[in-house]
């Protein structure tokens, strides 16, 4: 097959950017699941609303994109705190009810978004204009900035969990809730923190995606599905696993449509998941259950 080099490069860059957006989703999901044992099916909606908040802040209040993104992350973190307190905390014991409640929340938030934001496609200002020219290959600046932002946010999370007191408390609470309680770590406080951080990351991911592509009330579903696939492939609660799985899924989305066609790109994640489950059911870096 004779493919222009430029198209393949373009696919790889797009894949990289998409992959890191998926990683941001997966990190939030795995953090929330690790502490509360609730799979947040409404996380895609948090991602979507986060992007819309940025849209309104930049369009109506003419705020610069950086400020708007930071504000949107704070707003969504607050929303996460409220959701945790009133919906997730009472349902923590029963995972079936939690699945129903979070999927019901998806319905509410999504149709709410259709009502409030409308069905028009909107867009956030671009992150940057023009391409870099690296050895004759054009690399769009906005993709590069998206990747850098996502990497920096992921690194912050990693450092927070590894080095700070609160981060260590969260890890402890995820590893052994009873032991953590005996050390004076409140599981509810940790759950609230996990929700806040997870929702802030989702809002950041939504903003990046909204600025690279477009906004719509239904934009949350694909990254949610990809984020959950990442968790299965990389192993629940594993940050390196999430990074690797995110890259793989991003490249599947970026390169496979160009090389093999869209049908293969659609089946790629499923086939990958099946292969992983046959070889190593707990994921790349997951702990055996």
């Amino acid at each position, binding site marked *: 097959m004779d493919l222009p080099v430029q198209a393949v490069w373009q696919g790889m860059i797009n894949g990289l950017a998409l992959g890191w957006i998926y990683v941001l989703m997966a990190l939030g999901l795995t953090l929330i699941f690790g502490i509360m044992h609730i*799979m947040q099916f409404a996380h895609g909606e948090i991602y979507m609303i986060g992007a819309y908040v940025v849209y309104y802040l930049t369009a109506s209040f003419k705020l610069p994109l950086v400020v708007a993104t930071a504000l949107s992350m704070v707003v969504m973190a607050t929303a996460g705190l409220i959701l945790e307190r009133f919906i997730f905390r009472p349902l923590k014991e029963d995972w079936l009810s939690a699945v129903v409640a979070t999927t019901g929340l998806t319905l509410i938030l999504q149709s709410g978004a259709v009502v409030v934001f409308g069905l028009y496609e909107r867009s956030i200002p671009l992150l940057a204009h023009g391409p870099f020219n690296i050895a004759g290959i054009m690399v769009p600046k906005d993709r590069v900035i998206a990747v850098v932002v996502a990497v920096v946010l992921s690194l912050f999370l990693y450092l927070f969990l590894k080095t700070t007191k609160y981060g260590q408390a969260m890890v402890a609470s995820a590893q052994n809730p009873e032991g953590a309680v005996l050390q004076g770590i409140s599981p509810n406080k940790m759950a609230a923190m996990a929700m806040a951080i997870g929702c802030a990351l989702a809002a950041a991911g939504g903003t990046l995606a909204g600025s690279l592509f477009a906004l719509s009330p239904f934009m949350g579903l694909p990254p949610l*599905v990809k984020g959950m696939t990442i968790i299965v492939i990389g192993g629940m609660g594993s940050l390196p696993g999430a990074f690797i799985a995110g890259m793989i899924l991003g490249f599947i989305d970026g390169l496979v449509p160009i090389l093999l066609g869209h*049908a293969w790109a659609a089946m790629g994640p499923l086939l990958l998941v099946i292969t992983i489950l046959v070889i190593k*059911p707990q994921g790349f870096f997951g702990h055996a259950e």
Partner: protein
Amino acid sequence: MQNSLSLMKGFGWIILAAASIAAPPLLANIYWTSVMNMIVINSLMAASLRTIFLIGEFSLGHVGFMCIGAYSSALLTMKAGLPFGITLPAAGLMAGLTAILIGYPFMRVKGIYFVILTVVTSESFRLLAYNWRSLTGGTDGLIGFPGAGSLSIPGFAQIDFTGFTEYYYLTLTVVSSSLFILYRLEKSNLGFTWITIREADKMASAVGINVLKYKVINFSIACFFAGVGGALLAHSEQTLSPQASSVFGVMTTIYFLVYMVVGGKSSFIGPIVGAIVLSFIMEFTRPMQEYQPMIIGAIAIAVVMLLPEGLASIPAKIDKWRAKSLNPLT
């Protein structure tokens, strides 16, 4: 008191059957007949979803198998020219076989991981239909495949199912016999094995039950009926669209789950009650279309928080309350 409860149950079944048989001539309205058709299909989907719950798993991918069934039946009638009497079971078999193939790897994980995998599966199937232009028509969807047509039952008669009312009765027959099969399966040895696996899977494997095999059997049977439901849906609508907002999107799968949970997942009648009640609520709120998912979502959250056993547990609750008020010492 137990007696009055079972009497009430019997009455409920009779009223349900009578209402569903008498509805089309009484309503005499194509619109309402097609709504009833949809409700009947939804009941089958919710009841077969509950079959998976018998092994303690939860599927959010039921609509994916419905999609497989719908497309298989539509393509078989369209490209191979087979009659509906053959493509209906073929659609079910196609969905069931797919379920067997992916069931073996998927059943190695439990709980929320299985839920995630089923979501991924159903989205992948939808995207496959969306992107496989040469076979499924891609984004344009599939239009112009024949309806049920006339069905010849050997040694009996030739029945024409082209009209809405006739098709409704066909759906009702297929769905009620499917529900009967599901009910008998649940009460059979196989069903008890499934419940054993749900209650204590390690114990089950210790006494020599091949847990993986029975789980895959369960999953494939449930998906078989999802495929049948998909075929019934395809030939009543006669158009298929793989858009995210279409009937094959994740929204529908959430609806099935909500039907099951709102109706009550612990009894066989529960999901059927849920499907009927919520479908009617959706029908009556159709003027406020954009708020519909919100209403369903709010009902789902309210039910799991306030009435975790679902609507089907209300008669038993009333009965208990009456027994208590009549005889406060017990």
